[in-house]
């Protein structure tokens, strides 16, 4: 592989950019997190031990870790696809939220369909509504130059308000004060993984991990194929890398912007399959819980590549699950502390992505020079 990176990491070999930098960023985040743990008087080694054990130490933990990872994969892929077209889609949260609405409408109102039809219909509902929510910012960016970062952020707020209105006034169960829909019919739910595995004779502990995990892997493979091996992906990347070159090559950058955002919104929308169709079995308020935003960090850490995104998603899933275990075992490390650690990972992997570039460059230069 003769490819070298461009941008701030220009000139560094690929293995350093893809492998070394994320690991260094992660270690830096953990080092600072460790300091915080020391400051509140706990042992960082114990914290790491409990966190890792909580995430991977037993079957149920692994199930939970992968369950969280599933949501991260969807939102991470969403951010990555837009990013390959030069767009920063901050609206994964809102797109996932509205995607959940589309999925719920299918599960609530098309439940006369058999399981084999309602599952694909729900997937289409989630993708379609997520894409639709991304369309308006996309069109405004493509044809009016309204920056997609601003508009997608605003659309997150609009999505939140719309969902509160719908769940309180339109979709709540008759006679109930709860802002949530009625339960989905039993055949309009995604089977849990441990049930599926039990059916083929493999016994694993119960966890919320469900079939949408497999769909997330399929989507990852699909994104990889789409971005790097189709003409559509070539057009999308060209428009993202150089709009003038795209125009020269007969590619319409506005069209690619809209396409990229639609695909991005559809992927974000699929996050609702995991949380709602897999576990909650009804439409609830704020089920997205920040997964849409975390997708940005996942995509950055995964370098926009599906394999990287899956790895980063498992890491973030482990932090979620292990973090929950940690705050349970060590009461002085609260849930908020765990959020702070996740924030540090996002800070180092995302915002400070290239912080170690000069160091790595110097070390490599010395090695090859001497």
């Amino acid at each position: 592989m003769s490819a070298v990176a461009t941008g701030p990491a220009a000139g560094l070999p690929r293995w350093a950019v893809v492998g070394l930098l994320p690991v260094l960023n992660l270690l830096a985040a953990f080092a600072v997190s460790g300091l915080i743990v020391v400051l509140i008087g706990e042992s960082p080694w114990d914290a790491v031990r409990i966190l890792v054990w909580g995430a991977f130490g037993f079957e149920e933990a692994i199930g939970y870790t992968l369950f969280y990872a599933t949501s991260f994969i969807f939102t991470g892929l969403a951010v990555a696809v837009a990013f390959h077209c030069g767009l920063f889609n901050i609206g994964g949260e809102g797109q996932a939220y509205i995607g959940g609405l589309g999925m719920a409408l299918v599960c609530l109102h098309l439940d006369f369909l058999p399981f084999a039809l309602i599952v694909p219909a729900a997937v289409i509902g989630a993708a379609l509504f997520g894409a639709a929510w991304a369309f308006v910012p996309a069109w405004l960016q493509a044809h009016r130059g309204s920056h997609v970062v601003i508009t997608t952020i605003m659309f997150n707020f609009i999505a939140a308000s719309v969902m509160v209105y719908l769940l309180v006034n339109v979709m709540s169960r008759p006679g109930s004060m709860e802002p949530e829909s009625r339960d989905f019919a039993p055949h309009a739910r995604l089977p849990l993984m441990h049930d599926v595995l039990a059916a083929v004779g493999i016994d694993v502990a119960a966890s919320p991990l469900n079939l949408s995990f497999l769909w997330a892997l399929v989507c990852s493979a699909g994104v990889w194929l789409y971005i790097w091996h189709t003409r559509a992906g070539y057009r999308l990347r060209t428009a993202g890398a150089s709009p003038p070159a795209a125009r020269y090559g007969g590619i319409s950058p506005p069209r690619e912007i809209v396409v990229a955002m639609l695909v991005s919104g559809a992927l974000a929308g699929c996050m609702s399959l995991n949380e709602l169709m897999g576990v909650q079995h009804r439409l609830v308020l704020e089920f997205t819980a920040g997964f849409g935003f975390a997708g940005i960090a996942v995509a950055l850490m995964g370098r926009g590549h599906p394999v990287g995104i899956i790895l980063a998603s498992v890491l973030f899933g482990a932090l979620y699950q292990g973090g929950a275990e940690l705050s349970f075992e060590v009461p002085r490390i609260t849930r908020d502390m765990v959020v702070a650690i996740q924030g540090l990972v996002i800070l180092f992997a995302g915002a400070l992505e290239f912080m170690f570039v000069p160091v790595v460059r110097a070390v490599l230069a010395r090695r090859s020079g001497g």
Partner: protein
Amino acid sequence: MRDREEPLETTREAGAPAVELRGIDKRFGAVHASRDVSLAVAPGTIHGIVGENGAGKSTLMSILYGFYRADRGDIRIAGRTVEIAGSEDAIAAGIGMVHQHFMLVDTFTVVENVILGAEGGSLLASGTARARGELERLAREYALEVPPDARVGDLPVGLQQRVEILKALYRGADILILDEPTGTLMPQEADHLFRILRRLRAQGKTVILITHKLREIMAATDRVSVMRGGRMVAHRDTAATTVAELAELMVGRRVLLQVEKGPARPGPELLAVERLSVRDERGASRVRDVSFNVRAGEIVGIAGVAGNGQGELLEALAGLHPAAGGRILLAGEPVSSGGPHRRRRGLAHVPEDRRRMGLVLPFEARESAILGYHDDVRYRRAGLLDWDAVSRDTEAKMISFDVRPADPRRITAAFSGGNQQKLVLAREIERDPLVLLVGQPTRGVDIGAIEFIHRRLVAMRDAGKAILLVSSELDEIMGLSDRILVMFGGVVAGELPADRATERALGLLMAGAGPGAGAANEARRAS
């Protein structure tokens, strides 16, 4: 201002070179950019440094101006060894630099730009007053007149360059380094620049001129040093050398400077342009009522100072700019809007700006090599892009156009300018189009590659294709074209057969002073 430099003047040893570099060595990682380079520049002379891109000229001057530090070697100014750790040290040692890309603030006035970094005092007024007086003196002494209160962004390029020179002189420079100073100038402006440089020399200043244009070296310098591959390969008195010798020293082999071509054998008309008008995004008229044709087997050159509509004309022909009026006929058939369709009908286009438009710099070479042809069935298998086929095809093109290294997976940005340009040309020419539109085919390209590109264009002409060439290099226009059109203010100001075109005649037309220039001037004013 001048008092500060006085000590230097008084300590100057008689006969010592103004600038002397001894054994300068510099590595960037694996790249050995300067290899034991030595150079002596006599005071009160104009000293040229020539070399291909990447020969190490810019690195050497950056070391002299304090942007980089040499790993080894000494710098002596007027016989004294100096430490130059930053550009402040260079300025203090009396070195001034005029960069290829001007370091000016467009929204500031001339005076504000000149005092930038030497404001003198916390209130601007005193500094500006002094600068104004000093500017007047410099203007008188060196024929460097510039309106002091004009906004720099409103000035033509030639005047902006004068502001750069004034900036250096204002800081008391005795040694002036000019990096590719004529790249953006029109012939008359370049001549004026050389007059200014001679004037500076007459006043005892030392000028170092970095360029790849050998003709300028011959016209303006007293002595010339040639660099190749990071080494200083020769020093010559300009009067005792020839363009051919310098070119050979630069490239390391004999180079054909004149384009070798037989007489054109024009065939049927392949491209016809009828009363074409083009407006830019803001609705301003950029090309008006332009008509001409290009026949099979001929190269038609369009000369003109940048910004007189040639770029827009080329893009309109390629389908990148909608035409505001008129018709374009390709092999007798009118073309509809939409660039890709024209491409399919045999119109190829090498854009003026390869880095922005012709290539996608972060892409692998093979990805850049299918830009515009990515829908071709040859690159497809089972509905997906067949990267193996693309790689094979790209490698074949790279070999046939001598793109080095011929690695289809190397990132486009990592190739040198000449190799990037050869990649674009390979993509467009290997498709065997009927008509080739080519803009600035050799801008920023090494002599060796220029020779190669010119030969390919002539070969294409001789194969019966029609070529429309837009270039700001008059040598190139005159060397390649069979007919020459000159654009000024969006209209064709004149047409000359190549054998009757002289630099002077073209220069006059380009400046809007040729016959029929009245109409062009009017057109320019109207827009």
